[in-house]
């Protein structure tokens, strides 16, 4: 999916990076390569004092290049400035001092309900999903909860979720097609990626789109793409694609 030298994974990484501000405390969990690279990109570009927090407890790892199969491995502590383990990241968020948390999910609806738990009945599910990990406590307590999901189809963006693992206080959802903003209790289409179109977003979303105007996500800049090559030479940001 190469368009003008960048791919959808690059767009997602760069637009997430641009959502992060200097000095913010930012956490990513397990299976979270794309946000991990986005955090590193933000630190290299406009947010040098962003605080990178993760499960193994490595504060500001200087390199993420060893994290091939895991974004929760010891390598993130090996090159870190300090040790601040998961338990404490949670406590930090409960105290209202975690600025941004990156979370996943399988199903989302227009009302901002997130499902990472089951398809079907909770006690005897048709599909048992991995689980929301920290979502149910971090989405309500982090100042900004950003969800990324590399699938955008009618099974992912649905009228009503099968199960509400958590809801409310989302900030943004980033998909391969667009960015949703959660505002006044509803998901609003904020911008469409330059590689997609309003029609494609409509055709792949199971609820009526809400938007004021059609905007497009910024394309990655040459500097961003060059920086990505340096910080993420093995292309971990594309693992999920």
């Amino acid at each position, binding site marked *: 999916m190469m368009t003008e030298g960048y791919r959808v994974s690059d767009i997602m990484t760069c637009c997430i990076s641009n959502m992060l501000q200097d000095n913010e405390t930012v956490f990513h969990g*397990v299976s979270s390569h794309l946000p991990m690279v986005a955090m590193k990109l933000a630190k290299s570009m406009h947010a040098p004092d962003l605080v990178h927090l993760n*499960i193994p407890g490595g504060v500001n790892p200087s390199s993420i290049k060893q994290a091939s199969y895991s974004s929760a491995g010891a390598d993130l502590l090996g090159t870190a400035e300090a040790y601040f383990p*998961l338990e404490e990241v949670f406590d930090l968020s409960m105290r209202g001092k975690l600025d941004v948390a990156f979370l996943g999910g399988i199903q989302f609806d227009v009302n901002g309900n997130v499902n990472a738990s089951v398809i079907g009945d*909770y006690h005897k599910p048709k599909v048992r999903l991995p*689980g*929301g990990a920290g*979502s*149910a*406590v971090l989405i309500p307590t982090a100042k900004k909860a950003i969800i990324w999901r590399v699938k955008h189809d009618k099974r992912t963006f649905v009228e009503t979720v099968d199960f509400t*693992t958590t809801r409310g206080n989302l900030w943004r959802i980033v998909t391969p097609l667009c960015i949703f903003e959660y505002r006044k209790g509803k998901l609003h289409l904020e911008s469409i990626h330059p590689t997609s179109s309003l029609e494609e977003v409509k055709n792949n979303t199971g609820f009526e789109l809400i938007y004021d105007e059609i905007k497009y996500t910024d394309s990655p800049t040459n500097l961003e793409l060059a920086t990505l090559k340096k910080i993420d030479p093995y292309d971990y940001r594309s693992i999920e694609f």
Partner: protein
Amino acid sequence: MKKVKSLKEAVNLINDGDTVSFGGNVLHRAPMAAVREIARQNKKSLKLVKTAGAQDIDLLCAMDCVESVDAGFVSYETKYGLANHYRQGVQSGKIKGNEHACYTVICALRGASMNVPFMPVKGLNAGDLLVKNDYFVVVEDPFSGEPITLVKTIVPDVAIIHVQECDEKGNAIIYGPKFEDILISRAANKVIITTEQIVPESRIKLNTERIDIPGFLVHSIVQVPNGAAPASCYKKYEVDDKSVSAFIKMSSKDEIRDYLKAYETKDYLGERMGRRL
């Protein structure tokens, strides 16, 4: 009492129906040799507790050792995909999947470590997890009158934690991320340490302030080099990609029995090895 035991003896301490908590996180420093021995000894109806598990939980689910799983996340990471044995177990109704928010597992274990019946948890205040699970209750804070969620304490009968170094008294040092292991060691009634090597007390004494789990909390010690494999162990080895990749393709119990058999020599190696005393 002699704490150093063989892997068989240590795992034999676990009773069917016990609540068991494992150290490590997903594919990192999970006590996999002990997990394999639990499967070989065909333990039944175990209640597993972990913030985020992967092959440890999946393997025991595959071998029908598990009654329930209390966890925030059960899956391999991106590259290896989903924990299919766990999923099938829950989907067929054989296993009860008690979903937590990772932090609520931590709070439930903190409750055990402080010997209180529940812990208040901030954050968990919306959604169906509260409604569907009897281990969460929303009550009125008696001081402020505001609603507050409580999570029921989980007291593991047994904790199994794999470490890099431990002496014969059980004084254990974890290198790299400690995950929730220190908390688990305080929460459980019985702590089993599996260790890459048993080192002389004199060596641990050079680093007393680095001891993560003091020996008086430890019931049993097993020397198992590569005891976390195929999970990683910081400063010792990385994830064994071949072994994990082979395992996730297995669907029958017979295949997995062969997989367990192939690990036997390695898993029992530490018992025959000399200790560095």
